[in-house]
């Protein structure tokens, strides 16, 4: 089963190496990992999608906790959450097919963010299902280049994975 972990880490040099190294060293499979700053300058947030049964997840979480730079971990898989991914796709777009591409872009509420002589860059955000669907629809036009961010996710409502709440707990 795939799990989504929201992980708060101290923003120290090497923290990404420590986390990524732990996964490979212990043989856990990362589906995706995205990382960026949070509302606190010293704290970063990682969203890690990891494959494994409950036992594996228990170990992953416990081993992550042992890293001194890891502040907090939430497995949000079974909670109510919002998740998003961003993709940029460069497709072949001869003038003859542009109209068709624009229709697809509209349907998915994606955006065209660059127009070249023979290519378009399309930006799309959404959950995994939507991103996959957009990519599938664009395939026939020839995908020249594709880059996606990996998932980020946040709990709905009055539940948090943040330092603020962490401080309140104490």
């Amino acid at each position, binding site marked *: 089963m795939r799990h989504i972990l929201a992980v708060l880490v*101290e923003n120290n040099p090497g923290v990404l190496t420590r986390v990524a190294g732990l996964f490979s060293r212990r043989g856990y499979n990362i589906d995706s990992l995205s990382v960026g700053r949070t509302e606190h300058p010293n704290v970063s947030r990682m969203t890690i999608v990891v494959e494994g049964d409950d036992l594996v997840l228990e170990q992953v979480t*416990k081993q992550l906790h042992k890293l001194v730079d890891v502040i907090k971990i939430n497995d949000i898989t079974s909670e109510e959450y919002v998740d998003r991914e961003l993709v940029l796709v460069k497709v072949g777009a001869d003038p003859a097919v542009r109209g068709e591409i624009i229709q697809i872009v509209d349907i998915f509420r994606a955006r065209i963010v660059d127009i070249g002589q023979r290519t378009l860059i399309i930006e799309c955000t959404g959950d995994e299902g939507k991103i996959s669907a957009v990519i599938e629809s664009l395939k026939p036009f020839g995908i020249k280049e594709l880059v996606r961010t990996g998932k980020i996710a946040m709990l709905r409502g009055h539940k948090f994975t943040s330092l603020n709440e962490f401080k309140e707990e104490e």
Partner: protein
Amino acid sequence: MKMTAAKALLQCLKEQGIDVVFGYPGGSILPVYDALCDFPEIRHVLVRHEQGAVHAADGYARVTGKVGVCMATSGPGATNLVTGIANAYMDSVPLVVITGQVATTMVGTDAFQEVDITGITIPVTKHNYLVKNANEIPLAVKRAFHIASTGRPGPVLIDLPKNVLQEEITYTNPTDLKLLGYRPTYKGHRSQILNARDLIMKAKRPLIYAGGGVVSSDGAKSLKKLAETISAPVVTTLMGIGSFPGDHRLALGMVGLHGTKYANKAVTECDLLIALGVRFDDRVAVDFKSFAPNAKIIHVDIDPAEIGKNVRVNVPLVGNVSTVIESILENLNNKQEDEWLELIEEWKAAYPLRYEAGVELKPQFVIETIRELTNGEAILVTDVGQNQMWAAQYYKAKGPRTFISSGGLGTMGFGFPAAIGAKIGSPEKDVILITGDGGFQMNMQEFGTAMEQGLSIKIIIINNSSLGMVRQLQKFYCDGRYSAISFHKNPDFVKFAGVYDALGLRVREPGELRGALEQALSTDGPVIVDCIISEEENVFPMVLSGRPLNEPIEG
């Protein structure tokens, strides 16, 4: 107070109560060695190889319970430490390891003697720091000691670029560690403690399985109280030797691959396994699925990740082992299961540790004689291999921190430098090293260190002119096709001692042993006793791969 960062570093060590450091100098760490001239209160032990420094710091930490400190220069100095760091990591030994690094302006350029030692040691340290801002050194050192010595102990490395060490800083002793993500749990969960007590009272065949966590949490007294209160026999891991008196009526000795048959039978037949500061390692559990098949399991450990890692447990208890045992003991009634204890006694009588005493010198006899001569009051340090297993089986250590051995990593060459650290940490005690001729040759250059420091270490070489443990594996698993296990040219170890003007003795027959050991023990300074044994000698019992734990071959 204004001072160079190098001096600030030593000031920090002083404030941590450090009075001995094991190390080896070099270019990048020059500023620290320069500052050492101004800190006569810190004893620097100059080793002959950096591996010696880190194992010595490790041995020192194991016997004292304090943090061991070692240092080395950048590049090869730092990489020479790696085995020792990994060794300490596997056995949860608190170390602070200080390495010099090339100047920050050169980092990342493949400069002379540059290696990414923080990168290299991520998997084998509890944490590490590369300090690029001189003002952060006091905080980094304080954090390093805190992290190394609390929770599940382990090595922490601090990498210090040369130009950072040379900077002038205003020294202040940091008060706030600001470690957001580091807060070990010490007290066991209340309801789980009740559950544990409940299982203990219901058990008909309770067994305690004690490991290194009992020793490192200073829990030996609590363990004894628990065992006696509930009359539970105790098996120990290699790391747990000494956590329970080896000559106690409830002691069943070591469990696992080369454990006593009665310890292994007890594990297989108990109905409650009280696992204290252990990690169900594969040398013990052998096969996770069939380990303690009839038992409910209470697992106490400071590291939550160890609980449920290899085997499923019924009562998980995260906390300091000693503290948790004391909590369990509150309101715990005395009990005794006579049938179980009688069964144990039957097994002890039926399957004792044994060897054939005859005209040949036997390694088991060597260990037994040492036990007798020292009354178990000495600190026994071992190397790795058959010698280690015989020592573990026959020494029957009396107390914690008196049996020092490389467990998790099984590092040949650990013994001698660790004995140096042990003797410096515990000068009033006899320190005896049991080593193979193979392992001794991995770090025997430290004889110079031992001489220079005037350390009375008694080096007992169990000399089979071969890599005995590997030979044994080849005998049982490779149909006796022996490959690369014989030393056709060993040095004359008696002469080797003589080269340093130290005493060396050779023992070939059982009758010569006692006299030689007595002479060694009453001689000042390092002594080598070269005990010549047959290369055919094997360690028994031995659980063959794929066989059940309770059916070892007994020779």
